[in-house]
């Protein structure tokens, strides 16, 4: 769109310059007596700029005062049934772009009510798999079993929404398109959940992280049974990342959450099931306990405790027969960051 605007602007200025040049080169006695050279110059300029003037006066974005929203009476998560969720199943899913095979017989069994992490390195085909599951891309072969559209919530990999709407306006549209009831209450709860309650400006002016949070809110607003999220924690600061993961964790048993990520930490924190995608195939899938039991080191132990003397603790562990002991400072960076941020307020 920006290229079209630049092209039109260049054409507009060119026309204006040509018209004024012709006017300047025309002898005064050949101009209409009524207007004169300056009068015609004014006519040429006004006629040439009528489009941009109309655009700037009438076509600008109109945000207007945001309509008053009711205070959220409850929490959007509480609207989900206490036991719910719909399963997702794919069989022999294959997708290629010419000779490049992206998905090669992908079988997924996502149990109802589970939180399922879909892991894989960048470029492994996670987004393509999700697009095929959602019907935005066509599989070469294979089947996808999932509930009706009204029971699916979806967050795309790049959250882009109608840029002229406010977050509340977009959530209202999303709820109505999904046929939800109590639209205004849901919008208030979704804004509360996403931390965008006081944001009145259009979506076009929001940061990537804010759009990400809006994307998660629009995926949940109609309380779907299956929620498909493509990298829901990307572009989020550590605190917002923690909040999103907490929201996902709160949906356990209430809805099925299937989300792609390349963050092992996110999967470990909230998921009960996971699948690894590599080379277009599911390399491993199952519960986290099964995966760690099958592929991890069963003798490796992670412990967190307070120690008055770390060096002495290490020595004691080695004396007790432990091997490969690595001691690090207690505490997590994101927790430290949250504490520091809280202290600065």
């Amino acid at each position, binding site marked *: 769109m920006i*290229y079209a605007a630049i092209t039109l602007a260049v054409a507009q200025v060119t026309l204006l310059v040509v018209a004024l040049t012709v006017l300047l080169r025309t002898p005064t*006695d050949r101009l209409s007596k009524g207007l004169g050279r300056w009068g015609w110059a004014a006519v040429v300029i006004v006629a040439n700029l009528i489009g941009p003037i109309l655009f700037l006066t*009438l*076509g600008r974005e109109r945000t207007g005062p945001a309509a008053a929203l009711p205070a959220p009476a409850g929490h959007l998560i509480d609207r989900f049934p206490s036991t719910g969720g719909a399963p997702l199943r794919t069989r022999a899913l294959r997708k290629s772009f010419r000779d490049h095979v992206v998905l090669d017989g992908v079988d997924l069994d996502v149990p109802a009510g589970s939180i399922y992490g879909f892991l894989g390195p960048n470029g492994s085909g996670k987004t393509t798999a999700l697009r095929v599951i959602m019907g935005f891309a*066509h599989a070469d072969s294979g089947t996808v079993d999932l509930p009706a559209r*009204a029971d699916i919530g*979806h967050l795309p990999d790049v959250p*882009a929404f109608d840029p002229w709407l406010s977050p509340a306006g977009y959530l209202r*549209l*999303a709820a109505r398109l999904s046929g939800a009831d109590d639209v205004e209450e849901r919008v208030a709860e979704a804004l509360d959940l996403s931390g965008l309650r006081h944001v009145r400006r259009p979506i076009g002016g929001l940061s990537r992280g804010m759009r990400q949070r809006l994307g998660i809110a629009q995926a949940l607003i109609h309380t779907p049974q299956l929620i498909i999220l493509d990298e829901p924690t990307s572009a989020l600061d550590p605190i917002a990342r923690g909040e999103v993961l907490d929201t996902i964790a709160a949906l356990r048993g209430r809805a099925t959450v299937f989300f792609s990520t390349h963050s092992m930490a996110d999967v470990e924190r909230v998921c009960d099931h996971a699948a690894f995608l590599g080379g277009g195939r599911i390399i491993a899938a199952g519960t986290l306990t099964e995966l760690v039991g099958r592929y991890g080191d069963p003798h490796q132990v992670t412990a967190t405790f307070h120690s008055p003397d770390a060096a002495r603790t290490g020595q004691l562990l080695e004396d007790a027969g432990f091997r490969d002991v690595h001691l690090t400072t207690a505490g997590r960076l994101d927790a430290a960051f949250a504490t520091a941020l809280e202290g600065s307020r």
Partner: protein
Amino acid sequence: MTLLARQFRVLRASWATWVLAGFALFFAVLAPVTATFMPEILGSLAGGEIPIDVSALPDPTAADAWVQWSSNLNQIIIILVAIVAASTISADIARGSAVPILARPVSRTWYWGSAFLAVTVAVTLITVVSTALMTGVTALLLDVSPTALRTPALATAAWLLFACSLIAVTLLASSLGAPTLGAAAAGVGWFALTALAGLWTASHAWSPTGLLTLEPTWGAAAVTALVTAGMVAAGLAAFRRREI
């Protein structure tokens, strides 16, 4: 209806719609003014160097204003219609905002249909209002008999039918994967093709070219309606298969 209302908001947010409305209203005023003062304009342009006897020129009539308006519709406004149509589906997909809409219980058929309907209604509204304005200004400047109004009314209605075919072609190009400028170019290409075919006068009776004249025929209208229906069907079928 929620989706249709959303498609109207898409059009309202597009600069192209406002430029179309602005140009249509501007030319609606300019056409009768130009027709009225054409002898003076010709005299001013010719000056004393080219011997033109302005007094020998026939007095301007309302028909001159209709011709001027018709040529403005065919040469400028129609191109803007293609740009407006391209600013719906193609721009929506390029922006990425179509994906979260189509992830909801919204059929692709209704998404495409609502875009077509919204553009058609917007173009019709703008054209009817600007034609009414043109007629009003013409009545102020020149003698207009009520029976003579049939000519601009019929010509504008025929042009609107042609504009529908152009909208369908543009949205068909969007369905086939064309970006915004590509879809607009397809619409402009359809107009250029029709204008070229218009050089063969025999085609006026039974092709869309007949709708770009001041005396449209029923045969041209029927053929254009059929072509439009075909383009709509093709556009819907292509959009159902399109990867987004």
